[in-house]
């Protein structure tokens, strides 16, 4: 018995968001009286792997097959299934990303496991039951769900646990798998990524803009504040629909749902669909010139004012803080 944690890499390193997934896995392992073991697929700097001990992993398997540098759906499922078999994993923890979730759903069938997505806290475990809390209705509500099979797969959202680093290094072991040709269908020809930009879903702080910014030419106001805070930028649906910003920055019910520590919304009125995507944020700040904007009801801090004045002031104050 063990808990297997799928770690994600980007640009040759284990993603910071996977540290949290690892720690979550170690806490589930503690609940079950077993150990947590990691798996990373792709070309990852080997020096990153023992460090995963700090997040509670006893061991990390790595697969650096050169064919699997990018995500290949079938192959990643086969490698993860092999790792689950080797480790006798009864619980498999994944980050709640597009890629890991695509692995999770196929793996659940292959391993005959119960699958829970969008999980926001550690499970409640008794001798006979295993219960998780997940967001449903696109972030408008929560559900407590019993996972009734012996084997469970859990896709965990950001901020589901507060990470406490510890001493220790993880043991590292190669895990190579002979792949079938069918495993390689869907291998990307090319991966296009905005370089040097923090993806919205992974950011601790998100600064987001709506139609109140009046046009893409004003986005530097948000970007300056984001830079000063070390934040990612996001946008509302009308902004993505108008093509001011790329769709992968759209947060809301039909975009990405996020749960950062701090969400700052400027010029977004707060339609119910937008709130659904962000209301798991720990702290919400709303800046709007309309004091009646519904978003203020869901906010922790608010400023009624012209964002063209307010954003530069906040940027200066944030810069002063980091100096």
């Amino acid at each position, binding site marked *: 018995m063990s808990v297997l944690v799928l770690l994600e890499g980007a640009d040759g390193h284990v993603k910071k968001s996977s540290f949290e997934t690892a720690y979550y896995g170690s806490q589930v392992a503690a609940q079950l009286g077993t150990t947590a073991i990691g798996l990373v697929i792709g070309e990852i700097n080997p020096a990153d792997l023992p460090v995963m001990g700090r997040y509670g992993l006893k061991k990390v398997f790595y697969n650096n097959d050169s064919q699997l540098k990018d995500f290949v759906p079938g192959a990643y499922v086969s490698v993860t299934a092999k790792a689950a078999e080797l480790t006798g994993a009864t619980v498999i923890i994944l980050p709640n990303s597009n890629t890991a979730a695509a692995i999770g759903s196929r793996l659940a069938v292959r391993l005959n496991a119960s699958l829970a997505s969008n999980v926001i806290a550690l499970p409640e475990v008794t001798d006979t039951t295993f219960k998780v809390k997940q967001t449903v209705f696109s972030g408008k509500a929560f559900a407590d769900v019993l996972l009734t099979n012996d084997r469970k797969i859990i896709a965990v959202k950001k901020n589901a646990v507060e990470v406490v680093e510890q001493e220790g290094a993880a043991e590292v072991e190669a895990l190579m798998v002979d792949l079938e040709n069918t495993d390689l269908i869907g291998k990307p020809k090319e991966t296009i*990524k905005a370089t040097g930009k923090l*993806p919205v879903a992974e950011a601790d702080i998100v600064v987001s803009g709506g139609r109140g910014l009046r046009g893409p030419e004003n986005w530097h106001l948000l970007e300056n504040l984001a830079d000063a805070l070390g934040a990612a930028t996001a946008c509302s649906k009308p902004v993505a629909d108008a093509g001011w910003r790329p769709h992968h920055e759209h947060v809301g019910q039909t975009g990405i749902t996020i749960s950062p520590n701090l969400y700052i919304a400027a010029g977004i009125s707060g339609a119910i669909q937008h709130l659904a995507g962000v209301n798991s944020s720990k702290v919400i700040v709303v800046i709007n010139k309309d004091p009646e904007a519904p978003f203020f009801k869901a906010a922790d801090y608010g400023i009624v004012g012209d964002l063209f004045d307010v954003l530069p002031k906040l940027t200066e104050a944030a810069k002063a803080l980091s100096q």
Partner: protein
Amino acid sequence: MKILVCISNVPDTTTKIAFTSDNKALNTAGVQFVINPYDEYALTRALELKEANAGTLTVLHVGEADAEPTIRKALAIGADDAIRINAKPTDGFFVAQQIAHHAKSADYDLILMGKESVDYNGFQVHGMVAELLGITAITPAIKLEVTGHAANLEREIEGGKEVITAELPLIVSCQQPMCEPRIPNMRGIMTARTKPLQILEPVSADVKTQYESFSLPEKKVGVKMIDAANAEELIRLLRNEAKVI
């Protein structure tokens, strides 16, 4: 080309969610149900591909009779025929088994669906159907083009996209900006009434999860307002009071 589009029947995105008094189910009083918005991308893109390549387009829904207006709407938008598998969709795996059981013998070139439903947000069914049928799923796709037997796709990843070419058959889950969803026109609505809707009984299937209860997020205690003239104060509060920067 033979295309299957799987659709869910979900509360409209403007719905204020509430539960029954025992918190065991959605309170559907006054709730308007619609085609899952992500499934609309799948349906519209399927129509565009059918128009460009010739073929058939079937929609499939796993659910009870109250979903029939949603199925008729899909027919009005342009699907040729529909199948309803008459069962309460209890979890993603149950639904996936129903879809796979039907698709196994039907020889579809493409099976399209939304990346997730806006009610349970599982992001599960496409991958499960893929595994059950032994077909690759590309998920979530933001672009899908078909030339002969090859599909050119783009898949959204955190902060970017992948460019993929793969042979049919494929399962593709869809999201914006794949296409501009269509609304039914009057002629579509008229013809939808007479298009075939076949009702099939479910196959027995494993259920691996059980929804025990639902709850709503706690209301915020109240917003602390800061004067715009003194906006810098916000940064100080975020550092010293909220401790998030």
